[in-house]
């Protein structure tokens, strides 16, 4: 008798707890729906119309403008204005640094790139593809320290020296943007660059990853 009653009691208890759980979930869901301060709603990722100006900033990497090797790293930013549905123009600036060493020198270069840019663009849904051509100057600030100089007692210009030069430069970059939410975009760009150093053309590359803001 007792053995037959036990499964029946267990089924009743299980059913009761399941009912309570459904009720709890329903209350929880309805209370969440009623919260007006939530972070994400149905329009969060909706693609909306945007204005002509696009500001972007991010992390930059590239070949140093005037050092033979290494990767210069830093930050970059730009302001673009769309001109019609295919073209845009604007300005960009970036700063990056790289330190290299030889037997006798430790050299640090600060590369500041100032560019006037124009681009051909194509919008596809959330995406934005562009080919960006920039021209301007790369201001290189060089700081050289004579290795072992401090231990040898060198001071002043014998120990270290600094100089600044501005190099004509430009680059051609492929740009990919993706509208994420509202005015915000994820952006990545990369392409070859060209500087004129001591009268010689010097090829390189530059890449940037960051975010854009297009209200």
């Amino acid at each position, binding site marked *: 008798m007792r053995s037959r009653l036990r499964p029946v009691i267990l089924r009743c208890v299980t059913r009761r707890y399941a009912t309570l759980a459904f009720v709890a979930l329903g209350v929880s869901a309805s209370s969440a729906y009623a919260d007006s301060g939530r972070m994400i709603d149905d329009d969060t990722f909706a693609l909306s119309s945007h204005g002509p100006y696009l500001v972007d900033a991010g992390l930059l990497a590239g070949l140093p403008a*005037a*050092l*033979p090797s290494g990767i210069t790293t830093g930050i970059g930013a730009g*302001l673009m*204005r769309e001109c019609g549905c295919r073209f845009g*123009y*604007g*300005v960009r600036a970036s700063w990056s640094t790289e330190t*290299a*060493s*030889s*037997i*006798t*020198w430790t*050299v640090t*270069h600060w590369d500041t790139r*100032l*560019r*006037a*840019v124009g681009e051909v663009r194509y919008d596809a849904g959330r995406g934005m593809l562009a080919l960006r051509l920039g*021209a*301007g*100057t790369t201001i*290189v600030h*060089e700081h*050289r320290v*004579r290795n*072992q*100089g401090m*231990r*040898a*007692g*060198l001071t002043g210009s*014998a120990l270290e020296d600094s*100089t*600044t*030069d*501005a*190099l*004509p*430069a*430009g680059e051609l970059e492929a740009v990919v943007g993706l509208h994420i939410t509202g005015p915000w975009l994820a952006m990545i760009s990369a392409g070859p660059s060209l500087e*004129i*150093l*001591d009268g010689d053309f010097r090829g390189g590359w530059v890449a940037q990853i960051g975010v854009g803001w297009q209200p």
Partner: protein
Amino acid sequence: MATLKSIALVAVVGSLGAGCGKLHGLGGAPTPLVSFDVAVTGTPPAGAGDLDVALVWGRQWLIEPLCIVPIDARDDMTAVTAVKLAGCRDPFGFIPARVAANAPLNPDGTATIDLFALPSADLMVGDLTARVAYASLVVYDDKNGDGTLGLAIPFRPADFGGMGSGAGSGSGSGSGDLFHTPDEVLGASFITMVNDPGGAVIDQRIAYREGAFLTTGFYPRAGCGDPPPAFSVLAASGFTIADAGSATMMGTVPQEADLSQCVQRTPESGPVTFGYGLPADLPLVLSRDVKELACTERTTDSTVRYREPPADMPDLTNRTSACVHYPSFGDPSDVIEFVVSGRSDDSCVGLTHYILKGCREGPDCGTPDWDHSLAPPSWWPC
């Protein structure tokens, strides 16, 4: 929008007017860490051709006991003296380790040596908090014209139990011969630490100091001031041989004979001036002449290596030999060794030691590696 166009215009115009200073990057002529002006006085020896000056860092090295302990009364005084004269270098002399820089000597006897690198750690004596290196400026005849002073090591051929070719630390003559250098040293700023009664200063050295300075037995100049940090030029009168002996017995370093000759100055304060050859009054201690300044030593710990006598008699042509009681700073030893000098025409002097029973380290090594004491080779002269 107008502002944006203005900024773009400035960027483009800026690129056209680019150029402020000259970027050097990793290139460009390196700045010397220090430069030393050298003035060699006097007339070079007849026949001297391509005269150069080298900056040579010194080695930490100890003379072998046979060269400095008094001759045992049981030994042949004449023969042992001859061996010591033929095979021992100046126990207080400067021992080269590495040539750091060379410069041609101008016809007026001047030169400027630029140094582009600090002495490496193996050339400095002391720890990271207090270490020092010393160098000598050497004027030499660059006989082989390779532009650098070639250092040789004492010649100990294989049949003399030597290590044969390729086992040394000398820079050689550039022809692969470590035991011979064609370059001929004619003079040096730092030849020996022994005082010249004639007053000539033959201890003018280049010093490089890092951290504090501790007086040690590494080319001591006790009584003189400490070398300044980094590079400097030092001078000292030297000490007498008698003072060196008594100081050694007391476990100290000998005091400089004339403290008024002590100099510690910067390299920029004037040239390092020295002459050719050796002062006439200098009491030479065993070394032949300044040519030994082209000789480095192969061992890094200055210990004497002993040889097992071969079955056949070694070629003693052009060599000096003697039977000598094993030198001891304590009780006299009964062990007799056969000592052979290098050849008289070798670039560097040196001694080869044979013992009938013992090890490479000497006769008192516990279990001997060889023992011919009961049946010496037929040629064994002792």
